[in-house]
Structures are given as structure tokens and as C-alpha cells.
């Protein structure tokens, strides 16, 4: 029964993984663009005494894109810090199931609902042609709102998929990093 369910779900779960990988690449490109933008902005300030009209907006959009586009892959790679959890002598299978239940029934629905809400806001902003009134450049609002909605939806899908893999003890469940471990090159 479980094997059949996994076989049915596998293409969907792999599609979610692929979307997260693609999104992570887009985040890396956004980071490269952000660094170039910031250097250009600093150079303009040194040369002319003030930045460009659009630099401020593009910089926060770029940083937001880096933040949001990397979420799915970070969840897949288990990069988020976690506590030591249940004692080491407790069965590994029990630990995986407990975490999977939390992810599938609490975290993924919450983030997915926030993503759906984000899509509705992006749609309204698109229909009304809303612009950022605080900015002198006045960029359209719907692209950044759609990005937030897409990132939340993708993270919900990725966490839900990984939680399901943990519950069903799938062979392609994400690797568990040591609790409290942080990436060497995390930088921050």
C-alpha cells in the first residue's frame, strides 16, 4: 500500500525537488546581480555624491529574491538549525515520523496558506496596476508580491514533500544533518 502510494507520488515529489533546484539557481544569479548592483551604487555615490533613483528599489528586490528563492532548496538540504531533539537512544524511525507529521500537518499547511494569500494579493496588485508609492521610481508591486507567493508555495510544497518522505520512510528522504550543525561557509 505504502509502496504503491510512493510510486504514485514520486513524479510529483521529483517535480517539487526540480523546482527547488531551479529556484536555488535563480537565487544564485540574483545574488551575483545584487553584488554588481551594490558595487555600482557605491561607485555612483563616490563619483556623483548620490545614488541612482532605482538603485535602492532594485537592491531590496534583489536581496528579497536571494532570500526567497533559496528557501526551498535550503529546506531540502536540511539547512535550518534544529535542536538535538529526542534522545539518541530513541528509534531513528520515530524521530523521522514525528518531524514528518509536524511538517506535513502544521508547517506546510500554514506556509501554503500564506502563499495562497500572497497569490491573491499579487493578483489584486496586477489587476489594479498598483505601484510602490513610497519609492520615487514607483515600481509595479505585483512582481515582488508574486515572488513572495511563489517562494512560500514552493517552500510549503518542498517541506510537505520531505515530510511525506519521512513519514513513509522513502529511500529519497532528505539527509538529516547533525543537530546544531551550521554550514562552514554560511558567512552569517
Amino acid at each position: 500500500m505504502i509502496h504503491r502510494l510512493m510510486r504514485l507520488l514520486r513524479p510529483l515529489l521529483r517535480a517539487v525537488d526540480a523546482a527547488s533546484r531551479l529556484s536555488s539557481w535563480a537565487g544564485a544569479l540574483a545574488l551575483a546581480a545584487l553584488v554588481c548592483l551594490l558595487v555600482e551604487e557605491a561607485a555612483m555615490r563616490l563619483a556623483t555624491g548620490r545614488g541612482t533613483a532605482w538603485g535602492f528599489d532594485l537592491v531590496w528586490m534583489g536581496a528579497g529574491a536571494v532570500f526567497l528563492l533559496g528557501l526551498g532548496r535550503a529546506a531540502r538540504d536540511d539547512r535550518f538549525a534544529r535542536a538535538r531533539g529526542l534522545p539518541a537512544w530513541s528509534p531513528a524511525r520515530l524521530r523521522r515520523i514525528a518531524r514528518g507529521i509536524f511538517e506535513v500537518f502544521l508547517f506546510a499547511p500554514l506556509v501554503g496558506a500564506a502563499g495562497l494569500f500572497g497569490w491573491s494579493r499579487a493578483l489584486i496588485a496586477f489587476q489594479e496596476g498598483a505601484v510602490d508609492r513610497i519609492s520615487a521610481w514607483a515600481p509595479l508591486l505585483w512582481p515582488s508580491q508574486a515572488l513572495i507567493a511563489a517562494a512560500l508555495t514552493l517552500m510549503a510544497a518542498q517541506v510537505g514533500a520531505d515530510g511525506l518522505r519521512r513519514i513513509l520512510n522513502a529511500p529519497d528522504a532528505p539527509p538529516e544533518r547533525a543537530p546544531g550543525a551550521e554550514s562552514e561557509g554560511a558567512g552569517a
Partner: protein
Amino acid sequence: MSELAAPLMPLALLAAAAIGVPVVQALLVIAALGAAAVFGDNFVQLTHRAVETSASAYALTAAAPFALMGALMARTAPAAGPVGALRAAAPPMALTVVVASASGSAGVGAGTPALVAALAAPVAILALALLVVARVSGGGGVGGGRVDWPWTAIWGGTLALLLSGLAAPAETGALGALAAVGLTLWRGRAQAPAAPLIEAAQATSVLLLTLCAALFFAGVFVAGGGGGLAEAVAAPVGGPAALGLALAAALSLAVGRAAAAVICVAIFAPLVRAGGGEAAGFAALVLIAAQAGPLVAGRRPVAALAALGAMAAVVAAGALAPGLTDGAPALIAGF
């Protein structure tokens, strides 16, 4: 129900941590459920707004370039010797810049004194680590006894530019990242140029989501009456600053340095500020406490005792220093 929300939130966090759930997931879910109890049934919108605020905060843009610097450094600098000490000091420095930047203590030509105080702690750690490791290692191991001058120059130049106030923290980080890319290419380590970019993008996501979740959690906790609760609990141990620092050291053993620092700064900085302290100085002390925590575990007795002493000094300074901005450099002098 709403008056029960604040006391239940930390207990729920502990319960979630106990089953091995990532801290950021637990913080978001508990904050959303707490928001439902405190504010009504609009917790989905509040969750969305918390993410939207973090995604559009200009003050947080420093995270990404500094993460790229760290990722590139991890590729080209050896893990041992003084270079390794520099590499280990890079993440706390980057985190301090992000926190100081987000707390409004840093900017172009503004708030430099507060930033100096905030950076004094990790810079002092870096200098101390370089000195100690250079003496102890004496040429043994990979990179032992040898100072990596190009990397030292990049970090030194970045910090000097940051403190001069000529460029914003994010711009300074970008210039440092560009220099780091140049050094990586010069050293012939550009076989996989995309890997540090992906790693840095992921690190940025992890840091900013943790910050977003911690701020969301702290906001709901304080709105639900948790501020008074934290002050009441903190009073016997020397005030919110001391409790926050002790908690940072303890939490860093369980959830890692960055997450512990971010959570404690988010929850306790408003309480410290309300008591007349300064957020950037408090953030610097939290970073030292979070660094000292993992030093205690699994070390030789002398090293563990030294780390414990450092932690006690940090906590005492948090309790005693009337203005934490002034307290941070004084504390470092006695470190």
C-alpha cells in the same frame, strides 16, 4: 485564552525542539498559532506579512554579500592555524553587521559610534584568535602559524570602509565580496564558481527566515504579555540582558550559534532597549555568548573553563553594564 498564549509559547517551542523540528519551522508555527490566540483569526495574513517585511527590508541586504564572502573564504582559506581562526571569526562578524544594520545602528555616515561598539566584539575575537593560534600552532598543520595576508587585508579593508561610513553595510559587503571573488580566481579555485553562490544564497535564506521567524515570534510573545513575564523571570538573574546572554550560550549548544544569537537578539533586544540599553551593543554581547557556548562542549578542561569564564564575564557584563554600548568594548578589554 490570549493571556495563556505568551506563557505557552516558550513551552511549545521546547516541545517542538524536543521532537527535532527545525527551530525556524517551530518559531513560525508557534508564532502563527499565538497570533491566532492574541489577535484573532488572521494568523495566515500575519505570517505572510512577516515574510514580506523581511523580504523588503533594505536594512537586511547586507546579509547576502557577507554570506558570499564567507562562502568564498571557506573555499580558499585552510581550516587550521590563524587563517582558520580568521575564517571562524567571519560568520560572527557578518552576523554583527547584519544585526547592527537591521537595528538602525549602521548606515552611510550615520550611527558610526554604535557600529564601532557592535563590531568591537567580533574584531577583538578575531585579533585574539589570530594571536593565540599563531603562537600555539607555530607552523604545524595546514596553514598553521601563517597569516593569510590577502584574506586579512580583505576583511580589514571591508571593516575599515564600514567604520568610515563612506558606504552602506550592504555596499561594503559587496565590495568585499568582489575582492573575495578576485582572490578566489587568482588562487585558481574557480573550477566550480556557482557553488559558493548557491551556498551563499542558501545561507542568506536560512539567516533571513530565522530572523523573520524570531521577530514574528518575539512580536506575538510581547503583544501577548510576554514582555512582563520575561522581565519577571529575568529579575532574579540580573535583568533581561543577563537572561538573554545566558540563554544565547545555552541555546547555541542545541540550535547552533547563528540561530541562538538571532532568537535571543530578537526577543531580548526590545526589553534591553526599554531598560535604557542599546540594541547593537547587546547584539555584540549575544554573539560572544553564542560563540562561547559551543567552546565549552567537548573541550579539554582548561579550554572549557576558559570558555565558561568568558561566558560568565559576558553574562555579568550584561547584568551590570548600565549602557551596553559602552559596556561591550570594556568587556572585550577584560576578555
